[in-house]
C-alpha cells in the first residue's frame, strides 16, 4: 500500500513540475546605438565583398566599467524579483570556450566534431528576451544629466515588449556611475510592470511565436507547397493553414507571405500547455505539425530546425 502511495506522490510531483510554463530567458545587452557612440564596433566582411559593422560586446565589457556596473545592477534587481537573468559576459566567455573546445576535440581515430555552417552561426549570445540598455551623458557647464533608455525586445518576433526611459535631474557632483545606478533603480519597476503585462498576455492568449515552412529543392518526396495532397485535392499550403487554424489559441496567426516553396507565419499564438498538461514551446508545437504531416494520407518527411523558445523552421520533403 505504502509503495502505491509513494508512486502516486511521485507522479503528482512530476506533473506539478511539467505543468509549469517554460520560463523565457532574459539578458541585458548594450544597444547598438550605445556601442556605436562609444566606439565598440568591429568590422567584419559580410561575404559579399562589403564590410559590416557589428557591436563588439567583448571589448565593451572588458573596458567599460559603467556598462558592467549597469548590467550588474539590473541583474541584481531582477534576481531580487525572482527572475535571474543570463549574464552577457558569461555568455561571451562560454561561446569562446566552446569554440576553443570545438577546435581541439577529436575522436580516437582523429575525426573532428561535426559542425554545420548553421551551427556556427547559431553560436552567439542569445536569449528569448533582450533588454537593450542605452544611456547618454549631456554636459551643460558644470552640470551633468543622464538620459536613459531600457527597452525589452522579443528576440523571435522582434516586437518591443515595452521599456522605460527618462532624464535625471542635473547634478554638479555625481559621476556617471552614480547617475546610472540611480537611473536603473528608479526605472526598473516601470520596466518590470511592462514585462509583467507581457507575461500576463502570454498566460491569457498563449505564447507568440514564428514558424517558417520551407521545402527541400528536388526532394525525394517530390512535393512543394502547391502539391495536391489533401483527400479532396487540397494543396499542401491549405492543409497546413487548416491545421494552424485548429491548433493555435483561438485560431490566431498571421500568414506573412507564401509561395510554392515558402510560408512564413507570424504572431502565432501557441498554447502554453499541451493537451496532456506538459509545457509547450515552439519546437513541441512544430513536432505536432510534423507528426500530422508524416501520417496518412500525406506521408511527408519533415526536418525541424529549432531557433529557440519562439521560432522553428520546418523543412518538408526530406530529413
Amino acid at each position, binding site marked *: 500500500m505504502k509503495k502505491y502511495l509513494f508512486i502516486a506522490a511521485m507522479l503528482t510531483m512530476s506533473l506539478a513540475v511539467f505543468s*509549469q*510554463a*517554460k*520560463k*523565457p530567458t532574459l539578458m541585458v545587452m548594450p544597444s547598438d546605438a550605445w556601442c556605436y557612440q562609444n566606439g565598440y564596433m568591429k568590422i567584419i566582411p559580410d561575404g559579399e565583398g562589403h564590410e559590416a559593422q557589428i557591436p563588439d560586446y567583448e571589448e565593451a565589457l572588458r573596458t567599460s566599467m559603467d556598462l558592467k556596473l549597469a548590467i550588474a545592477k539590473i541583474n541584481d*534587481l*531582477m534576481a*531580487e*524579483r*525572482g*527572475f535571474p537573468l543570463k549574464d552577457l559576459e558569461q555568455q561571451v566567455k562560454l561561446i569562446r570556450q566552446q569554440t576553443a573546445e570545438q577546435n581541439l576535440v577529436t575522436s580516437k581515430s582523429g575525426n573532428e566534431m561535426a559542425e554545420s555552417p548553421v551551427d556556427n552561426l547559431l553560436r552567439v549570445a542569445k536569449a528569448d528576451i533582450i533588454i537593450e540598455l542605452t544611456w547618454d551623458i549631456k554636459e551643460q557647464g558644470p552640470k551633468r544629466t543622464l538620459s536613459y533608455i531600457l527597452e525589452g525586445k522579443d528576440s523571435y518576433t522582434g516586437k518591443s515588449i515595452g521599456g522605460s526611459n*527618462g*532624464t*535625471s*535631474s*542635473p547634478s554638479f557632483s555625481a559621476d556617471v556611475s552614480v547617475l546610472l545606478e*540611480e537611473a536603473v*533603480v*528608479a*526605472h526598473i*519597476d*516601470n520596466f*518590470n*510592470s511592462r*514585462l*509583467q503585462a507581457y*507575461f*500576463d498576455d502570454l*498566460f491569457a492568449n498563449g505564447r507568440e511565436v514564428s514558424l517558417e515552412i520551407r521545402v527541400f529543392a528536388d526532394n525525394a518526396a517530390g512535393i512543394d507547397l502547391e502539391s495536391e495532397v489533401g483527400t479532396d485535392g487540397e494543396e499542401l499550403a491549405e492543409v497546413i493553414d487548416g491545421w494552424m487554424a485548429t491548433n493555435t489559441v483561438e485560431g490566431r496567426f498571421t500568414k506573412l507571405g507564401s509561395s510554392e516553396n515558402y510560408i512564413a507565419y507570424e504572431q502565432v499564438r501557441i498554447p502554453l500547455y499541451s493537451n496532456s498538461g506538459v509545457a509547450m514551446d515552439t519546437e513541441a508545437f512544430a513536432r505536432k505539425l510534423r507528426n500530422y504531416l508524416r501520417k496518412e494520407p500525406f506521408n511527408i518527411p519533415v526536418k525541424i530546425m529549432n531557433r529557440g523558445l519562439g521560432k522553428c523552421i520546418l523543412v518538408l520533403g526530406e530529413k
Partner: protein
Amino acid sequence: MKRNILLLALAVLMAMPSFAGAKKKAEKDTEHFRYEIECAGNGTQGTYLVKVWSYSKRAKVAAEQCMKNAVHGVIFKGYTGGNGCVAQKPLANRPGVEMEYEEFFKLFFSDNGEYYKYVSLTGATQDVVKVGKEYKVGIIVSVQKDELRKALEQAGVIRGLGSGF
C-alpha cells in the same frame, strides 16, 4: 477641587467621540482615495520616497493618516513624476483587486495593522494648511516597496514576475 476634576473628565469625554469621529472620517477618506500622493525624490534601493497630503478636522489625525495613505497610494494609486523624479505605477494595478481582497486589506490597514511595517517618517517636519473647516497635512515618508511587494505576492494579491513559470 472635585468640581474641577468633574469638569475635566466631562471635557475629555466630550472630546473623545469627536476624535473618534475624525479618525473614522479619515479612514473613509483613505478608502475613497481622498488623499494626494506625489514623488518627493528618488528613494534608495527598495524604497519610494513620497509626500502624502491627508485631510481631517484635526491636524493630528491627518498626520497619523498620512502613513496609512502612503502605503495605500503605493499599492493602489501610484504617483506622477517630474523634475528628475520618476513616476511609478501602483503595485496592484489589476482592476477590482481591492474589492476582491477586501478582508485582507481591512486587516492590513487596521490601526497598528501590517501596513505600519512598510512605512517610516523621514523627518519631523510637516506642512499644515487650513482648507475651509479642515486641515490638509503633508508629510514626506519612505515606503519599503520591495518588502511590501513581497508581502502582497505571498498573500496572492499580486503576481510575482516569475510566477506561472
